């Protein structure tokens, strides 16, 4: 086992900010299965998913200074980064003309997430420790609520597009999303805080 194995995600990130490649490797070993799974769920093909995963680690290496260390939440930062990047690739594949050119500035504004300093700490170990809680909370939602959440999270559709796709009024989509997220908030965060 290498010496980086025992470091927390945030400690690894601190080392990465000094371009310590072993810490980056450790972070890759920890997060690549989850990030790959998420990207593949969004994008479909394995090859493309691997290409995007590679891009994520290049962004992490080059732009680690955009991570807010005081948030102490590499988990949410990385998952959101992977989600944003994969959804962007998906949108460009489906409708390239309507999206701005992919520049460094675009990446900084639309791909790299900004977490508030007030965010609760979350790392992979904590998430793994939650066991089936996430799955159970998700399964407790109605089919319609789950579908709307999936369309937003994994297909990158905004509320209007979801309404168009499902052929239902926009307020209905909004209310389903709001309710679903409210239930998840109650089940996941309150339970987590109560432990």
């Amino acid at each position, binding site marked *: 086992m290498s010496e980086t194995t025992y470091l927390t995600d945030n400690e690894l990130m601190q080392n990465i900010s*000094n*371009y*310590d*490649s*072993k810490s*980056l*490797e450790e972070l*890759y070993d920890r997060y*690549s*299965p*989850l990030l*790959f*799974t*998420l990207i*593949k*769920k969004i994008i479909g093909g*394995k090859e493309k*998913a*691997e290409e995007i*995963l*590679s891009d994520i*680690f*290049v962004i992490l*290496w*080059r732009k680690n200074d955009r991570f807010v260390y005081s948030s102490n*939440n590499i988990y*949410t930062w990385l*998952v*959101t980064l992977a*989600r944003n990047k994969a959804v962007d690739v998906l949108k460009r594949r489906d409708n390239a003309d309507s999206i701005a050119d992919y520049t*460094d500035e675009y990446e900084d504004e639309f791909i790299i*997430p900004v977490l*508030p300093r*007030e*965010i*609760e700490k*979350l790392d992979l170990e904590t*998430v793994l420790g*939650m066991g089936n809680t*996430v*799955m159970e909370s*998700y399964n407790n939602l109605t089919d319609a609520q789950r579908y709307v*959440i999936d*369309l*937003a*999270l994994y297909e*990158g*559709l*905004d*509320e209007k597009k*979801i309404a168009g796709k499902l052929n239902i009024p926009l307020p209905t989509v*909004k209310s389903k*999303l*709001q309710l679903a*997220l*409210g239930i*998840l*908030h109650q089940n*996941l*965060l309150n339970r987590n805080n109560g432990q």
Partner: protein
Amino acid sequence: MDNKKTLELIKSYAIGCSGKDDTELLKSLMDSDPDFPWKAVGEYQNIAALLPSSLMIELPSKDLKDNIARELFRYKEEIEAKQKLKKAREESSTLKEVSQPETEIEPVASEEQPEQLINMDETDFTQPTVQHEQEVFEKSIDDENRTTTAIDKEAIEKVTKDYIRNYFEKELRELNRSVKKSMTLTIILFTISLLAIVLVFLSLT
């Protein structure tokens, strides 16, 4: 705007499905409202990030790590330059704390090479492996017209351009703006002085 509406905007934003108008509205609230509920933003961002953890985990190819290392190696020069700049800034701020220096340290112009700024040893994640080197060698035999030196040169040029664009463009723009301002001010003052001289001369004659 009431808290309920703000919370609705936050939820949609965190899950990544708010429309353009709602996003702009939320961002303006973030910028202007001193009591903006940042904690709620964090909570819903955490929820959105937790959901993928319930997916059935799949593994990427084993050689992907090596491919990423290869990709990262391309940015070696850029990272070294960043490190150099960071070091120079740190030194500069230390100097400023000690005394008030009249000249600023030039961060990149120095010809001095950084002393092993990036931690890269034989088993380095960002170093291409032996297998990779062999591939590169084979490729170079196949493609005689394009030497590795040319590739390196192109990569360095690209990295340097990106680096300059990212880090100096803003500073140059600001510098240009302040130069323009002082020039305008000088011209105005010169004109006023000239007019005053003419007036004095006319009044005397």
